[in-house]
């Protein structure tokens, strides 16, 4: 009999409501996060079928995707209609809502953890593919579509076929200046955009154990960018220290009981994964994407690839298309690519630690005159904390625009978009064609490389900047 289990298997088994023969497993959902874009049709479906929200107290809604990040009203009538719809739906169905202006709003994957709602051992879903972020706490968290949102609202469960499992072990000591963003971009570059399809991935190894919660969230966040259904990290003392005292976390004796339960979650030695991958990070450089998906990535000290170097005709065609779209010539050194815009934000890199690391680079310096740069904190709470620490003044003095919380230029549903042909160094998660605006060219980077690039006007390693006078 096999007794050793993975973290994933433990969570899966403890959330099985039913698993009838010939049907998918029915999984209980501990926390359902909702936002304005993928929920209106789900609430409408409930209304048409005269169904209610089964567990409003396990549901939390916020406004993030299409909210403007400047002060003032929502000018876009369609965006306003969608935000109003969320407000009306939450009121009608009894779902708690952290609305814009409440001081509690923010990107759904930033507020869940900061409120202490994201906890080890939980199942968490949201109508957003970056729900994998919450896996950083040792939760099973994944993105769903609107039909599934409706299903969870109505039943607090989801039918699921069992995924395959994979463990990605990061080995070696990453060199100075290499961040969590670089680790995950490099891993995606190696595995390809479909390398994780069908799998729940556990990220492990000493490198992961030494990361802060913010950095673990960055890694888990991008699981979907190589197709994985979810990404997770075993909970440990770093996790518990982050959670203790947060509003949604257990207290007193309940906290002690929770700790006992959480300490029993990690994968047993000898537990088996369907696939094991090792990524050696000892010689890793900061990463910059050059193409139109996150696997099209190169080290900052490398160069744009040549389509002729690809044997697979599909891959060659994809690289050719990408370089045409991105306006790049094969062989161009990454460090010689200049940018027009810099965006620091998104559910990947908009937490306090991300803002601190970027501010540390730009303190006392000015951005390049050609560059327009934007910082969008992940939540109202991150914004407040950054302002208490004086980070807003550092960004403003350097020439950055300091904005209100939201998804902003990660997907450009609000007015923060690139113009056609503009090139952007972005701390977000997707460099798809038109992602930040039709014709816009996105390069994914870490917050420190984004900050350094804003100063130099081209991609540059922070260590290569001139010292502050």
């Amino acid at each position, binding site marked *: 009999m096999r007794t050793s289990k993975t973290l994933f298997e433990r969570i899966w088994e403890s959330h099985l409501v039913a698993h009838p023969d*010939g*049907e*998918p497993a*029915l999984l*209980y959902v*501990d*926390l359902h996060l909702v936002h304005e*874009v993928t929920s*209106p*049709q789900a609430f*409408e479906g409930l209304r048409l*079928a005269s*169904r209610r929200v089964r567990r*409003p*107290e*396990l549901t*939390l809604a916020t406004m993030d995707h299409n909210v403007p990040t400047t002060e003032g009203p929502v000018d*876009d009538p*369609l965006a306003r*209609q*969608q935000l109003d*719809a969320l407000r009306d739906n939450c009121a009608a169905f009894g779902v*708690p809502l952290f609305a814009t202006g409440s001081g*509690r709003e923010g990107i759904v994957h930033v507020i869940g953890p900061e409120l202490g*709602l994201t906890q080890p*051992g*939980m199942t968490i879903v949201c*109508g*957003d*593919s970056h729900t994998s972020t919450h896996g950083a706490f040792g939760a099973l968290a994944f*993105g*769903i*579509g*609107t*039909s*599934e949102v409706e*299903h969870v609202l*109505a*039943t*607090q*469960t989801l*039918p699921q076929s069992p995924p395959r499992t994979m463990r990605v072990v990061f080995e070696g000591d990453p060199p100075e200046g290499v961040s969590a963003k670089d680790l995950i971009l490099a891993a995606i570059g190696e595995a390809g*955009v*479909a390398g994780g399809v*069908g799998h729940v991935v556990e990220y492990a190894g000493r490198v992961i154990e030494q990361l802060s919660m913010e950095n673990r969230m960055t890694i888990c966040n991008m699981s*979907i960018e190589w*197709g994985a259904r979810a990404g997770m990290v075993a909970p440990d003392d770093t996790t518990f220290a982050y959670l203790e005292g947060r509003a*949604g976390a257990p207290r007193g004796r309940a906290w002690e009981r929770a700790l006992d339960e959480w300490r029993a979650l990690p994968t047993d030695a000898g537990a088996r994964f369907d696939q094991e991958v090792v990524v050696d990070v000892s010689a890793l450089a900061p990463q910059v994407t050059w193409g139109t*998906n996150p696997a099209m990535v190169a080290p900052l000290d490398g160069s744009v690839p040549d389509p002729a170097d690809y044997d697979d005709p*599909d*891959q060659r065609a*994809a690289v050719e*298309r990408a370089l045409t779209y991105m306006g790049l010539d094969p062989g161009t050194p990454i460090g010689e690519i200049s940018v027009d815009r810099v965006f620091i934000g998104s559910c990947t890199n908009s937490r306090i630690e991300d803002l601190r690391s970027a501010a540390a680079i730009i303190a006392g310096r000015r951005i390049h005159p050609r560059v327009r740069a934007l910082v969008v904190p992940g939540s109202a709470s991150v914004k407040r904390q950054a302002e208490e620490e004086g980070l807003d003044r550092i960004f403003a003095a350097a020439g950055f625009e300091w904005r209100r919380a939201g998804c902003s230029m990660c*997907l450009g*549903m609000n007015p923060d978009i690139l113009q056609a042909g503009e090139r952007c160094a972005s701390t977000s998660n*997707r460099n*798809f*064609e*038109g992602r930040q605006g*039709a014709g816009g060219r996105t390069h994914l980077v870490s917050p420190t490389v984004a900050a350094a690039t804003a100063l130099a006007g081209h991609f540059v390693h922070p260590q290569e900047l001139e010292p502050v006078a």
Partner: protein
Amino acid sequence: MKRFEKVTARVAVLDRADVDTDQIIPKQFLKRIERTGYGEFLFFDWAKDPGFELHRPQFAGARILLTGRNFGCGSSREHAAWALQDAGYDAVIAPSFGDIFRTNSLKIGLLPVALPAAEIRVLMEVANDGGEMTIDLEALELIAPDRPRIPFQLDAFERERLLGGLDDIALTLRRDPEITAYEAAHPARVATISL
């Protein structure tokens, strides 16, 4: 959801790999609160190019899309599946799909059919000549002109659900006693209402 009937139709070819849902339906159309009307925005930015593959006359009226690996990767937006269905597609055939897109498609009765890449390469030639194909979900077979019948796989439960046009939520609500029992045995881990 309406029942999935046997479909015989022209097949459009989009010979690209890793087509993400941002291309299928760009973000500016996600602000709508309706579930219908996305078809005219399908592949919005690509469709601006007069040379875009799907504009070819032999693909007019196509109800089956034949495309490259990892179709529908990226964002969870169900709008991508809605847009394809609204534009008249009943099925998408590809070597592989993004997981969330595949689930979304099944939920609304847009059939994702996975076939080996080499098989798809051959089918693309047939479709490029304007040939019709038949997808028989009952028999789990694809029928192309001058080709042996091509079997495909789909989970038996999903097949029944599509053929019967069954409501997923109603199916789950048959398990209401089990859900209630689970809730009784497992206290809530969080209380969003008390925050």
